[in-house]
């Protein structure tokens, strides 16, 4: 029952983050050239959350990304794009639907569990279920995949793809697939960018629930100070390593996200013709760099190259600094968009 081979003329482009990468790739294919950074900004991707009471493998949940799928939803809404979005119970149906859309010559986005994707470097194959990728064809019993965080397209066997699409656990993808159905002839980039910026400044400055936004950055900074006393040195190192992974690993990047947002502000200043945003982009770059300093110093502690309680105080100071800088910059963003 092998289907015939098909290859859609889809140009692979590597990106920093899977969700925005897939979105930018799919939209570009359908003629709406929009960069990853613009997707990130319009989708209000900048975020911070610290939930000490939710434990992932015994470690507190620290996240630099909004809920998976939130960027999709916001960007498609704000630009008026129709995205067909489907979930499945039965793997055969899910693969059948994928084949049908591919046969129509439309590239398809999938949610997948990273653990089951054999083409990834082994070090990244954790049970992380909110990865996004694009399928753009079939060859023999495999599928042609443009994974936005990789250098080049890859091939994945049907069996592995089924497993990845039906991974279980937290945020189980349940065969989720999506593809672009319609793009309006005229998109209002101006309004979309303003909405994206307003939304992000509100979510970070005046969150509706605690444990997210600037408040959470300061809260975590205060907690870090007491880690070595409360948890002991070994466990603090684990917490720290976990935080650095959440911050800097592929597709989750915290410092990296600040830099993408800086790139977005630069693009936005061009579209809106607003010099202020260009200056804010520079400030955002400094924030991203400060986050990277945090990772750099934290990793030294993990390695045992920096010791003592004072090293955690230094970390805490860096983090407070990030919080203050973000607060100031986001306030200016709010002012520029109101």
């Amino acid at each position, binding site marked *: 029952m092998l289907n015939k081979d098909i290859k859609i003329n889809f140009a692979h482009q590597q990106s920093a983050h899977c969700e925005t990468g897939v979105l930018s790739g799919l939209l570009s294919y359908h003629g709406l050239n929009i960069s990853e950074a613009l997707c990130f900004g319009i989708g209000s991707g900048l975020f911070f959350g610290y939930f000490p009471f939710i434990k992932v493998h015994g470690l507190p949940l620290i996240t630099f990304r909004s809920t998976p799928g939130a960027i999709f939803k916001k960007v498609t809404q704000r630009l008026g794009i129709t995205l067909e979005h489907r979930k499945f119970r039965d793997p055969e149906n899910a693969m059948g639907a994928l084949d049908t859309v591919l046969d129509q010559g439309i590239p398809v986005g999938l949610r997948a569990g990273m653990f089951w994707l054999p083409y990834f470097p082994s070090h990244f194959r954790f049970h992380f279920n909110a990865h996004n990728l694009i399928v753009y064809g079939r060859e023999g019993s495999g599928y042609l995949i443009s994974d936005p965080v990789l250098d080049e397209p890859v091939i994945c066997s049907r069996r592995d793809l089924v497993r990845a699409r039906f991974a279980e656990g937290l945020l189980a993808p349940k065969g989720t697939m999506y593809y672009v159905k319609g793009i309006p002839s005229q998109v209002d980039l101006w309004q979309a960018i303003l909405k994206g910026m307003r939304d992000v400044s509100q979510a970070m400055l005046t969150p509706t629930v605690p444990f997210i936004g600037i408040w959470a950055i300061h809260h975590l900074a205060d907690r870090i100070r007491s880690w070595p006393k409360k948890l002991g040195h070994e466990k603090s190192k684990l917490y720290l390593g976990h935080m650095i992974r959440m911050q800097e690993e592929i597709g989750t990047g915290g410092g*990296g996200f600040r830099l993408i947002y800086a790139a977005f502000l630069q693009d936005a200043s061009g579209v809106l013709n607003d010099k202020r945003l260009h200056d804010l982009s520079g400030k955002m770059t400094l924030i991203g760099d400060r986050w990277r300093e945090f990772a750099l110093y934290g990793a030294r502690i993990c390695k045992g190259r920096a010791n003592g309680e004072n090293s955690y105080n230094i970390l805490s100071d860096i983090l407070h600094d990030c919080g203050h800088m973000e607060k100031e910059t986001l306030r200016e963003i709010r002012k520029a968009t109101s």
Partner: protein
Amino acid sequence: MNKKEVPQDTGVLDHWHNIQYAVDENGRYTLVPSSGWEPANIANYQAWGIIEERLSQVIEKVSAGELSPLAYFMEKGLMDIALLAKYVRISRWRVKRHLRPDIFRCLPLNILEKYAKVFNISVEELQKIP
């Protein structure tokens, strides 16, 4: 981050690259491929170090007859009881029971096959002590 400062520390990424946003000479943002960054490598190796440590503890317990081989494959697949239970569609308390060597030994073939399928191994391999 400046374009020239984009780290190129090969490590967990193998031969792959990831994309970093960096500023070029004219202050414009560009996408620069990076072969990795040492802090990210360190954090990732740390996470795998813990996994390996736990795995060796499980191997000891399996060899000592305190746990069934299923515990080894579960740990190797980075799963816990809740996750494994979802994959095999068997209730959690039953999966927990199957970690006991005496119970595991008496499991019928159809249950063993379910587990073997998830771990992508044969039923014989599943019963072997690692």
